[in-house]
């Protein structure tokens, strides 16, 4: 399927644990910054899609005060209350109909300063059971997933240290990331405290403030706006059961289903051979190989070897999260779009210290829910 929609540009904040701003100011600065970069005004934008979360913003209909600062005053705007990569998918559909030439996507999360990120998952949980039994939270659920994954393939906890060390050293090279740790090593990761075994603090994402806007454009319009359009080649999304007790937490069927949809559109039959770089929303170290397997980028059971060999490093055969991924920063709602932005930087050859050698096709992943219940996959190409 020829989607014929491209990323014309994006603008993101360097992530922080305390971004001293307001939702409105950040939104205004993000969109006006992008308009300036592209030499356009808000009148050049056909439609707007916002991805924020009311429970994190502390407001009902949290987009009502964002329409004007993003530039949507007296314009068409809608809101996808999920990870921002889903909003990108919706914006892309709107352009695909031919009704709009351009679409601006906004997503941000203020879970560094304003609100605890762990409430996000608390409010997702079944209030008639999980919230009453009070056993599960985001971190304990992630730990159960980590244990399930490690046990299934007989990996030791050191695999998590290895993954986190790789991600955090990548993140230290990327000015957009929050966690900038010097001299990161497996030992240093292992020296961080257990939260829920086997997860240690540095295996988990940090509470983060950050935001991003992305402008999508139809093929022709994109070529007018930029010399370096990055094309959306495929996209897919899917969902798993709610109760973690009903799921095999060592695999992610919904990621596999989402990837299949995206790969079918993009004409990818051999992801390991055809994908050059992957940016995955792995909120916890264990999720990176788990999701990479579901994306068809890693063979099941080989994670320990592959990570030890350096194949997933920036200069490896299949770099995974060369930006450092969400272990570097996770502004909830914006994270999937940050992955997209990092992939676009790679495909444009603008990733500086994080640049991988060959980057023509990238896979980008976003997630929502307890233990990545819902997953979205987008394939980008030059």
């Amino acid at each position, binding site marked *: 399927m020829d989607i014929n929609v491209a990323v014309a540009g994006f603008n993101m904040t360097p992530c922080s644990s305390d971004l001293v701003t*307001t939702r*409105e100011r950040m939104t205004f600065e993000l969109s006006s910054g992008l308009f300036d970069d592209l030499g356009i005004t808000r009148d050049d934008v056909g439609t707007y899609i916002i991805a924020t979360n009311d429970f994190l913003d502390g407001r009902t209909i949290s987009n009502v005060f964002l329409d*004007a600062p993003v530039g949507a*005053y007296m314009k068409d705007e809608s809101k996808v209350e999920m990870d921002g990569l889903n909003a990108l998918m919706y914006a892309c559909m709107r352009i695909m109909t031919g009704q709009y030439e351009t679409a601006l996507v906004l997503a941000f999360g203020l879970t560094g300063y304003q*609100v*605890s990120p762990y409430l996000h998952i608390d409010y997702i949980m079944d209030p008639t059971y999980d919230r009453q039994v009070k056993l599960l939270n985001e971190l304990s659920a992630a730990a159960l997933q980590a244990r399930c994954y490690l046990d299934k393939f007989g990996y030791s906890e050191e695999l998590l240290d290895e993954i986190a060390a790789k991600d955090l050293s990548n993140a230290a090279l990327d000015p957009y990331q929050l966690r900038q740790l010097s001299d990161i090593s497996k030992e240093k990761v292992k020296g961080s405290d257990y939260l829920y075994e086997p997860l240690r603090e540095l295996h988990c994402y940090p509470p983060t403030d950050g935001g991003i806007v992305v402008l999508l454009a139809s093929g022709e319009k994109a070529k007018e706006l930029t010399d370096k359009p990055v094309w959306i080649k495929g996209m897919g999304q899917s969902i798993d059961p709610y109760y973690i007790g009903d799921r095999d937490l060592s695999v992610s069927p919904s990621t596999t289903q989402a990837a299949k949809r995206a790969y079918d559109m993009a004409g990818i039959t051999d992801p390991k051979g055809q994908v050059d770089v992957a940016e995955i929303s792995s909120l916890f170290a264990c999720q990176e190989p788990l999701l990479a397997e579901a994306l068809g980028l890693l063979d099941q059971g080989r994670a320990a070897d592959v990570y030890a060999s350096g194949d997933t490093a920036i200069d490896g055969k299949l770099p995974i999260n060369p930006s450092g991924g969400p272990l570097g920063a996770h502004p909830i709602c914006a994270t999937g779009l940050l992955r997209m932005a990092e992939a676009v930087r790679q495909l444009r050859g603008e990733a500086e210290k994080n640049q991988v050698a060959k980057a023509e096709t990238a896979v980008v992943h976003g997630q929502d829910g307890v233990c990545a219940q819902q997953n979205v996959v987008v394939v980008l190409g030059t």
Partner: protein
Amino acid sequence: MEETREVQGAWELSTFKFRIEGDGFQLMLNSMKDAKLKGLKCQECGTVYCPAPFYCRKCHVFIDDEVEVSDHGEVMTYTIGYADVRGEPLDEPRVSCMVKLDGCDTWFMGVLDEVEPDDVHIGMRVKLKWNEERVGSLQDMEAFIPE
């Protein structure tokens, strides 16, 4: 239909640390100490906002051009309240209105006093009645009254 049991949950807004824009609002509050109202004007389209946001909604640019707006204006719409915010009946009906102050493009909401409900009409001229003692609080403005 068989009734099932009820359990509780909460959205813990008390744990939030909110930041909201304060400059335009503060500008107005400060000016009120002198029984004046200050807002911002968009340098591009000329729209005057009071209290002002930091940007113009129409032109999508930062604005910082301070202007004073009049404390006289026109009733654009009004309502006569018979119940309080909880829906409890009020002892006496209470008139409140939206006013477009002269020299300002945004509307104010406030109590309309010193007039019988039956005599209120859209388009009537009103002015702000200021408190004698003003401290830079919304309480500095006692009510709108007929001009």
